[in-house]
């Protein structure tokens, strides 16, 4: 079986695993919460301002993590924003270079360079965050602080990023340099460093497919590991921002305290 055939078998399997993981570890858990509270909040009761504030606090600036310290916050911001922007640029790149009519945007290499620039900046931000996380993980091993570390997830994501940069470097090592390639940053720098190393430059397709398989494997991993906090943590915090949900919670607690017998409701 060729590497390409394996790639096309694994990709749908991983994407399927992500959705099964989300169903099993996120949506079914939300069903437990709604089942326990026994009531839904009408859409009209949603406090949009509070929701926006919670989103800004918990997702955009991650204020709760900032309270724990500057270093954990910096690390988490670099990883979460690096990953999110990288993901968006990945999707954009796939759409604009393969699926959508994008001739005006891509004409003269400017659009293509913009995509590569975005991918490289976000990838480098993510890489720095992951390296900080690994160093911090090693420094805090065996202490109470270790409970904040996710070493398997960090190493997995690091492999995704590194294989991506290596594949890109090997690609640019094989093509002649053009004006504006400097905007490609790390990918181009690696290409220049590798240029002429014949035994390595031929392995571009291997690294690209390894990167693609790892990246989609990481998507599957999101649904089955602590990384599910990417979806779960903002949801839980956003619930907390809603006065109607908090009031419903208080009612549920009071009813829970006052229930007289097992089995009654």
């Amino acid at each position: 079986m060729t590497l390409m055939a394996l790639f096309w078998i694994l990709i749908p399997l991983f994407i399927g695993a992500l959705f099964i993981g989300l169903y099993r570890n996120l949506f079914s858990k939300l069903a437990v919460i709604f089942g326990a509270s026994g009531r839904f909040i009408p859409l009209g009761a949603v406090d949009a301002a509070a929701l926006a504030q919670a989103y800004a606090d918990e997702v955009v600036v991650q204020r709760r993590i900032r309270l724990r310290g500057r270093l954990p916050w910096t690390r988490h911001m670099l990883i979460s924003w690096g990953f999110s922007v990288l993901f968006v640029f990945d999707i954009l790149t796939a759409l604009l270079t393969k699926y959508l009519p994008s001739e005006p945007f891509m004409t003269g290499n400017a659009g293509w360079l913009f995509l590569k620039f975005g991918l490289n900046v976000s990838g480098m931000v993510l890489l720095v965050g992951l390296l900080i996380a690994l160093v911090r993980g090693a420094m805090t091993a065996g202490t109470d602080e270790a409970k904040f570390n996710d070493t398997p997830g960090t190493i997995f994501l690091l492999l995704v990023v590194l294989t991506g940069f290596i594949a890109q470097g090997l690609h640019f090592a094989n093509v002649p340099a053009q004006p504006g390639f400097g905007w490609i940053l790390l990918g181009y720098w690696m290409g220049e460093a590798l240029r002429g190393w014949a035994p390595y430059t031929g392995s571009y397709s291997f690294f690209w497919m390894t990167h693609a398989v790892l990246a989609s494997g990481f998507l599957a991993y999101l649904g089955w590991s602590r990384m599910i906090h990417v979806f779960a943590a903002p949801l839980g915090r956003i619930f907390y921002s809603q006065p109607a949900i908090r009031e419903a919670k208080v009612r549920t607690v009071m009813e829970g305290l006052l229930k007289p017998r097992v089995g009654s409701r």
Partner: protein
Amino acid sequence: MASRGWLFDIGKCTGCYACEVACATWNATGAVSWRQIVKIETGVYPNVGTRNLSMPCLHCDHAPCLQSCPVGAITKRTDGVVLVDQATCVGCMFCFWACPFGVPQFGAEGKMSKCTFCADRPAELPRACEEVCPTKAIISGEMADLERLAAKSGGERVGGPAAPAMFVIR
């Protein structure tokens, strides 16, 4: 191993908060409180009153917190005690929303913490809250023993689909 739980005598509780203090001291809970005195208002004017309910984790048989945890950080020991592994917890608060008793607590670290049934105390000793209660309103033990004790005083098990491991004498 026999399942363990609580027996609480509402009539005996004076709301002195000794249990809260003992719990916080023994378990070094910091800013959060694993056991809280809840004041419940009863009656109709002019015949009104307040009762005190000292609320720990009820270590439910079908713990909704455990069922709702997306990362499997919450487990149930063979003796029925429900525990959270803080190294696995991601602080999503799903357990808080699922618990019908408002038990899960979140401090500045953002990780869930709650009553561990004084997991680090030898089983033959009373729990920290139980030990200091001046009126003996709190009793811990095996559920079968607690059921017999509760029955003698007309007590009953706290209800609900989660099947909390607590008997209450009203």
